[in-house]
């Protein structure tokens, strides 16, 4: 009976939160942007403004974390950080063993997509924090600092996996070419020639090992993570309380609402790119954020019971997992897995993954957290 009550409580609680969330301005602005783009509105948020808003949101999140970390027991971060790393790596392997096996899916594209979904979106994180704050759900000040612990391992894993796969393929191809040279002569030659027109001559076999440090450095240097880390450092080492409270904090929700419009517009704009690649990307992009969130939520629960990680912190971990990178991840992957088609992974992430994470993921995990742990 107790269990049944809990379940009913959970479901009713969850549904209430969920419906309220659907009327929330955050989601409303996201949908508004998507609709505006869909009806070909010439509404435009200049690129400079978009970049500045992202900077403002992430430095604010960082500052807040940094200021609060001063008073926290930082060792508490160890277990959640470990779980963040695990989740990031796991997500890529999941993509490698599900998405990559589906028909019409190129393996490198699938791995890159997994990397992007394992990586973290600062905007989604900011949206999640705004909703948590609005609902008065408490969380550890350092929770936002979990960002890089999931982001970087996911990107590194994806690039390493793709590189291993590509070198294997090249060896296989070399052997196959030798064997099958005669068979596909006609078709192959034409294709070969076209490639030569573009790239001049076949690559010399560069049997290089993937270096991991450059990938990590590249991620840390990305504009989003840089802003977060800069904020953290400033919050930790200087006394920015007054400027934080008079400037960064009051502007946060407003700027976030504008960012949601941009992301809605982006989502619609990318839908066309997504259409050009296999349908499975859309399916993956719809389901994956929620599954990733549940995995992280599970890990978070372990930390909750083991070391007292707060309910809010668990929700943040889940939101970070559900999010997929929209700013720093794509260029890192474009450089790290150049043979992967950006339309596949960016389309999947921006057009479907991010809206799902924000519109379904955030209310889902908050509702779940409150219902399960009574945060």
């Amino acid at each position, binding site marked *: 009976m107790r269990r049944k009550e809990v379940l009913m409580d959970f479901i009713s609680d969850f549904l209430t939160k969920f419906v309220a969330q659907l009327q929330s301005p955050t989601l409303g602005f996201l949908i508004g942007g998507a609709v505006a783009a869909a009806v070909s509105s010439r509404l*435009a948020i*200049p690129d400079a403004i978009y970049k500045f808003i992202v900077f403002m949101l992430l430095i604010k999140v960082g500052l807040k974390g940094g200021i609060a970390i001063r008073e926290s027991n930082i060792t508490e971060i160890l277990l959640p950080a470990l779980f963040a790393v695990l989740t990031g790596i796991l997500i890529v392997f999941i993509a490698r063993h599900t998405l990559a096996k589906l028909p019409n899916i190129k393996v490198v594209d699938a791995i890159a997509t997994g990397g992007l979904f394992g990586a973290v979106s600062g905007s989604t994180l900011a949206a999640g924090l705004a909703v948590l704050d609005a609902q008065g759900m408490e969380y550890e000040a350092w929770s936002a600092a979990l960002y890089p612990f999931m982001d970087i391992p996911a990107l590194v894993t994806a690039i390493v996996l793709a590189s291993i796969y590509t070198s294997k393929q090249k060896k296989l191809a070399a052997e196959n070419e030798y064997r099958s040279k005669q068979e596909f002569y006609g078709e192959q030659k034409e294709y070969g020639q076209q*490639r030569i027109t573009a790239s001049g001559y076949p690559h010399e076999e560069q049997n290089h090992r993937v270096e991991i440090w450059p990938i990590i450095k590249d991620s840390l240097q990305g504009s989003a993570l840089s802003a977060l880390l800069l904020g953290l450092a400033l919050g930790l080492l200087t006394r920015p309380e007054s400027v934080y409270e008079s400037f960064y904090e009051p502007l946060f929700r407003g700027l976030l609402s504008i960012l949601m419009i941009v992301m809605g517009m982006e989502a619609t704009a990318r839908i066309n790119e997504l259409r050009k690649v296999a349908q499975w990307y859309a399916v993956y992009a719809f389901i994956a954020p929620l599954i990733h969130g549940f995995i992280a939520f599970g890990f978070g629960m372990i930390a909750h019971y083991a070391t007292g990680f707060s309910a809010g912190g668990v929700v943040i971990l889940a939101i970070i997992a559900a999010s997929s990178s929209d700013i720093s991840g794509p260029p890192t992957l474009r450089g790290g897995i150049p043979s992967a088609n950006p339309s596949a992974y960016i389309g999947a992430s921006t057009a479907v993954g991010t809206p799902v994470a924000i519109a379904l993921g955030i209310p889902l995990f908050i509702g779940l957290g409150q219902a399960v742990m009574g945060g």
Partner: protein
Amino acid sequence: MTQKASKLVIVTEKVLLKKVAKIIDKAGATGYTVVAAGGKGSRGVRSSGQPSVNDTFTNVKFEILTPNRDMAVNISDEVAAQFFDDYSGIAYICDVMEVLHAHTF
């Protein structure tokens, strides 16, 4: 005092800006000029990995004056070999009739 030259034009993705510049430097060209460009080509892939709203110029166009055709072809071959398998891009040569004024050429 004036000089015949070749002009190599390379249009490719913005992410490659620094890498292509390095190749040009290494090939011994005396300089280059680069502008932000948009475009459409065979790939139909415009994603440069950057948010696209309001940023229509995701390509860069390099123009490199080289004292002879060979240097231009070398640069072009190197760029194409390293990048054109995975990135969109095009490279072509124009003749420049005369370089009239330059600090070093």
